[in-house]
Each structure stands twice: as structure tokens, then as C-alpha cells.
């Protein structure tokens, strides 16, 4: 059971306090406008931001560990904008995501390439020449090379065409089905509600709502959080 129980208390603007949990095989979405604190929360879990509070991964307290140690404990990170290494080929990008030697890494790579066959055809291509959707797949693949228990994604659908995002979401469900816990931050409310098992809504650095997608839609809390209370016509999302 890969459950993180997170209570963070951060001085400063972006994140006031957030408490959440993700279980193995679950897809959990963080919703919120920009500045709400989604990215900061993910970075804090990864160890890239200073924070006080508890971060437990599978029962183990990792809050005092550096980012690279947390990665080795089983967290994979797909940052906003992908942050692929300039100049590295697809193959090198994937291999560097593994902490093993070349031979073991290549084995893991063939497993990851089954998930993303379009990358298998382009192993020698420099990463910057790939399309947006392919780059996103590559970034996810890179994170998967480390065999993470928890996968963090920061706005994976940003800048991608809807049909590509459909593909992406399908893949993420598959990854979760394989037992990985998936926590993603999404600005697109509709997408998040489609894919997630549970949703947290953040506003101004705090969790303001939590629940299943169905419950979030009927309560109207999202519209209030994003657009302001009065005179907003009810917005219905596709079932």
C-alpha cells in the first residue's frame, strides 16, 4: 500500500497548509487556478521546496530527505514544461532516468517503450525535435524509468491538443492500473474530473474542497472558487 499522508505548513504566500493522501493504484487530481499552490505542493513533495511538516511515503517519513534521495525512495516527477535535457536523444533521456547500469536500464526501457510505442520509433531523435505530445510522453517515460511508487505530474496537458491529451490520460490510467499512485496537478477542470478517482481543490494555498468528481460537480464549490460567488450561471460538465 503506497499511501502518502501529507501535512504541510509553509510560511510564505503560495502554500499555507495542505493535507492529502494518495493510495497505490489511485489517480488523484489537484485542481486550482494559477497561484493556488498546485505546483508548489508537488515540488514540496518532491523535496524541491523547503517545507515543515510530514511527508510519508509508504509509512516512511521522507520530509527530511533531499530531492534525489526521495527520488530513490520511489517518487517520479514530471515537471511543468517537461524540462527535458537539451540535446539528449530519446534513448539517452530514458536511460538517464534509471538509476541502474546501462544493461539493466535498457531492459527497463523496453518495458516503458511498450507503453509509448511512438517513442520506440524515434530513439535517436534529439528530444527537442519531438512534438509537444511526444515530449510529454518522453518526460513521463523518463520518470517511469526509475520504477516509482508515486508519480507526480505538473500540468501534463498544458499546450497539448485535445486528442493528444486523450491519449495521455489513457496512458495515465494504465500506469495507475499497474499499481503506481498518480498525483497530478491540472488547470483544466474538465480533464481532471474525467480521469481522477478523487479530487482536491486548492485556492490561495489551501485545500478548499475534496471528494469524488461526481460530488465536486454537484456541489458548485468549483465555480465559487474560480469565478466568484454571485451571478454565475451554473455550469454543467459532461457526465
Amino acid at each position, binding site marked *: 500500500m503506497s499511501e502518502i499522508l501529507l501535512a504541510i505548513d509553509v*510560511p*510564505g*504566500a*503560495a502554500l499555507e497548509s495542505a493535507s492529502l493522501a494518495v493510495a497505490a493504484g489511485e489517480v488523484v487530481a489537484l485542481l486550482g*487556478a*494559477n*497561484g493556488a499552490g498546485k505546483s508548489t505542493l508537488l515540488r514540496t513533495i518532491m523535496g524541491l521546496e523547503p517545507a515543515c511538516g510530514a511527508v510519508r511515503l509508504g509509512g516512511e517519513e521522507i520530509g527530511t530527505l533531499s530531492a534525489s534521495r526521495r527520488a530513490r525512495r520511489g517518487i517520479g516527477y514530471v515537471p511543468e514544461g517537461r524540462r527535458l535535457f537539451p540535446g539528449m536523444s530519446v534513448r539517452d533521456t530514458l536511460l538517464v532516468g534509471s538509476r541502474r547500469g546501462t544493461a539493466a536500464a535498457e531492459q527497463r526501457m523496453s518495458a516503458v517503450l511498450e507503453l509509448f510505442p511512438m517513442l520506440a520509433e524515434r530513439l535517436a531523435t534529439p528530444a527537442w525535435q519531438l512534438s509537444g505530445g511526444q515530449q510529454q510522453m518522453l518526460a513521463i517515460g523518463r520518470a517511469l524509468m526509475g520504477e516509482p511508487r508515486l508519480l507526480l505530474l505538473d*500540468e501534463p496537458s*498544458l*499546450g497539448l491538443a*485535445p486528442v493528444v491529451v486523450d491519449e495521455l490520460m489513457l496512458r495515465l490510467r494504465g500506469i495507475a492500473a499497474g499499481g503506481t499512485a498518480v498525483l497530478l496537478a491540472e*488547470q*483544466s*477542470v*474538465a*480533464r481532471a474530473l474525467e480521469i481522477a478517482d478523487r479530487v482536491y481543490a486548492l485556492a*490561495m*494555498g489551501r485545500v478548499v474542497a475534496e471528494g469524488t468528481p461526481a460530488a465536486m460537480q454537484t456541489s458548485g464549490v*468549483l*465555480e465559487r472558487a*474560480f*469565478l*466568484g*460567488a454571485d*451571478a*454565475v*450561471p*451554473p*455550469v*454543467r*460538465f*459532461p457526465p
Partner: protein
Amino acid sequence: MTSAALAQSWRRLGARAPWALAALALIAYAASASPYGLRVLALAGVQVVLVLGYQFIFGHAGALSLAQGAFFGIGAYVTAILGSRYGLGFLATFPLSILAPLALAAAVAAPVLRLASHYFALATLGLAQVALLAAVNGGELTGGALGLTGVPGIVLFGWAVPRGFAFTAVVWLIVAAGAWLSLRLMRGLTGRAYTVLRGDPLAAAAIGLSEQRLRLAAFLLSAGYAGAAGALDAHVLGVVSSETMAFSVMVACLAMTVVGGSTRLAGAFIGALLLTYLPEWLRSLEGYALLAYGAALLLAIVLAPSGIAGAIAGTVAALARPERPILPAPAELAQPQGPSGLPLLVVRGLAKRFGGIEALKGIDFTIDRGEILGVIGPNGSGKTTLANLVSGFVQSDGGTVILAGHNLTPLGASEIARAGIGRSFQQPALPPELSVLEMAALARASLSNDLGFRAALAGRDRGDRRERHEAEAMHFLRILDADAYAHYPCSALPYRSAWRVEIARILALEPKLVILDEPAAGLNEAEQGELARNLRRLARLGLGLLVIEHNMPFLLPVADRVMMLDEGRAIASGKPEDIRRNPAVVSAYLGRRAGLA
């Protein structure tokens, strides 16, 4: 005398006493020193002048110049050549030794100062190498590698200064003059302007400080002081050679500056004296000068980056009882009442690309006096780029920005700040080393042109003028209810109050248009209400406001009009109520599949 005034007098005495004691000790030593000892003392004085000069460009302006040794050498050679070959006297050679490196610095300044730090260091290093080559290969003129001998002594108005005490005294009188000048230039607000410049270039531009002018002045001064030091060196030693131009001079200067303290007057003395005498004391261990310099420099930069003087000042500050600051009374400034409803800002076709990405694809809009325009849009839509282009922090690729009839498009950030556009940043641009009051007073002085070396020499950046600027600064702080924070260092401001200080900073430059980038971030409801009230107040006074926000519940009630950006284009514009209902806006915020019920 009130107790506060008495305490201040004691403090001043306490600050001056060490100098008086040191001067007395120096004179006492010199009176009883051997001729050799006097010579070393004179050489130490030469190094003090060199380091004082280096402090301008390296310490205050924060630029790693590696040409200081070359300027020193040029000064020395000018004195030697004109003195020994052409028989010119001190009163002619000394000023020329200052002017020659100054001229060189002026000649290369324009292109070189624009370079980013490691290129600037390299360019100055290259310059130093060329100077060395010129010296070594100057044939008869420079005496080649062996150099020139027979540099005459110092002759002042017919009096040949005898070697020994008098000679050393003359050198140290020049040192004192250099120190006096350095103090006068840096003691006032100009010195504080340099602190902001090197630590926080963004805040410097926002306050209207001209980075180019300040850096140029520092570079020229450092060259002039180096020339003076070189001239004195030639007189003391009686010879110049390629050693005088060698890189080791530069390294020694750097070591002395870092070890002593690169921004404090005392640091120049401490560093120069320490590193001149250290090899003397270690003379039994031959040739360990380089080792001493290397070790001292490494220890200093790692353990005590502000040098010995900085460490002492820090200890004194920690031990001293915190003084109860006396806040200046706020000045009464007339409220600007501009006529509302007239167009203030006209933006046409504003565009920007970053590499292959078009961040802004041609934006048109206007803001009238007294109007609040809200700008909304998802991540990456170009809102902050828009703010950067209008305020001059980024150069546009097309379009015009016209404020009150003046075309601001070609201007840079600091010029635009002084021309009437103020802005805030997502992370408040407040220089951490200054107090809130100093920062605001600096903005006032910047507006009144009371900064810079000419102003410092004329005394316009301290005394009465400074007090007036501080009083005016208090006025703006009080408007924002931030006057209680006046003596806080900007780095110690509680996050929730930083917004007040930043808006006070903006107002202190008397802007016509204010750009605010996500001002409500991190504020609770009560603070947001106060912010909203303040914004309305500014609008009533005739200012135009451009407010970028994600927080719709905050923005929609405050703005007169709202413009929405998406992927670099303005896709909607109108009254807040209409924007709220606009389907394009809703779908951009809530996801493309959302529709109206």
C-alpha cells in the same frame, strides 16, 4: 541635550574614535621607524589607494574587473616616462598618471560594461594582458622587461620632499585625500543606490536608478585611483618594470579588497596594511607571500565574504543596544488631481517573441486616467510579458507604448520608471539590504536627480536634502499604513506587509500609471479588501491602473474594465459582469468542454 541626541553624539564619537587612534598609532610608528620601515609604510599607503579605487567597481558596483592592475601599471609608467625621460615634475606627472588610465577606461567602457559578468572579467583580463605586452615590448619608451629607473622624487612647488618621514607623510596625505573623497561619494544615498544596483538590479530599475551611469562612474573612479596609486608607487620605488604591470598586482589588490572588506572604507586600510605587512612578518619563511595571499583570499571568500571590516561591523551591530529609531515626520505633499476620463496609456500592436514562441501577438488597448483595467488569462497567456513590455523590463518586438502623449517604446526600465510608469512584481522587488525608509528615500532622490557622483560631491544626497527625501518617503509609507515598518530592513518585512511597502515604493516615484502583477497573491480577505480600497483611491486621484490577477473574486468588483488574454491575444474585453458571463472566458478557465446550462 535630549538623551537621544546625547546617545547619538556618543555613537558618533564611538565611530570616529578608532580612526583617530589608528591615525595616532600610525604617526607614532612613523616617527620612530627606520628608513626601511618608512618605505614599507609608504608602499602600504600606495596599496590603500589602489584598493580604495577597486572598491568602487568591485565592491560597490559589484563587477569583477581584472584591469585594476593594468590601470595601476599605466599610471606608474606615465610617471616614470614623463619624469625620468622628459623631466616633468610631480605636479604635472601626477595628474597625467590619473588621466591616462581614466581615458583608457572611458574608451573601453561603453562596450565592455555592457557584458555579463564572466565576459566582463575576461574582457578586462584581456585588456590587462595587452597592457603588459605593451610595457614589455615598448622598446626604448618603456624600457622593455627591465623597465625604467631614475624616477624622480616628489617635488612640490620647488620643495624636493626628502626621503624618509616627509616622503611617507606626503604619500599618506594623498591616501587621506582619497579616503575623504571615497567617503564623500559613498556616504550618502548614492552609496545606497550602489547597494541596490549590485544586489537587486530589478529593484534598481524599478526605483529609476540608471545602471549604466552608475557603473560607468564606478569604473572611471577605480581607474583614476589606480593611476594615482601607480604614480606614487613609481616615486617610492624609483623604478618601474614589467613587474609593475604583472597580474600579481591585480591578484594582490583583489586579495586585499576581499580580505579587508570590499564596501567599507576601513576595509581598504585593513586589507592593504595586513597583506603588505604579512609577508614582512613572515620574512623568515622566504617567498611565502603568494601563499599568504592565496590562503587569506580563500579563507576570506569562504568564511567572511564581507571581509574583516564587515565582520567587525557585524559584531559591533550585534553587540550594540538597538537604538530606538526616530521616525521623520511625513512631509505634506499635494495630492495630484488629474482630470479623469482622458486617455493616459495607448498601446498599439504590442508583440514579443521568445525564440520560436510568440508570447504576445499584437495587443491593442488603452487606459484612461482614473481607470482600472484588469487583465486576466490562463497560465502562459502573456500577462506578465505584457507587464514587462509596457514597463520596459523586456524590449518589445513591435508595437508602441504611449503615455500621456510621450512615446516610451524605445526606453529602458529605469527610464520608464522615471517617466511615469510604476510596477510591482510577483515577488516584491525590495532590496534586502536597505531599510524601507532608505529605499523609499532613494526613490525620491532618484526622481529629484539627487543621486550620482556629481550630486554626492555637491552634497545633494545627504544632510538636509536627504532628510527632505526621507520625510517625503514617510508620507508615501503613511498612505499605505506602512510607516511603522520604516526602519525595518526590507529583508525582514513580514510577507503580508511587503505589498504595502512595494506600492509605497511605486508611489514615491509619482507615477501616472501603475502596473500591478498579482497584487492579491497570498493576502487574506481583510487585506484584499484594504488593497481594493487603496486601488480605488489611487484611481480617484487620477492614476491609471493595470492590474493582472488570477483571483477573480478580488478583481471583478475592483476593475472598471477587464481584458482577457489567451495565448498572446486579447480574446475578450468589457465590463466585469459581462466578462464573467462570456463563454470564452468561462471555457478558458474551467476547461474547454464546459458549456452553459
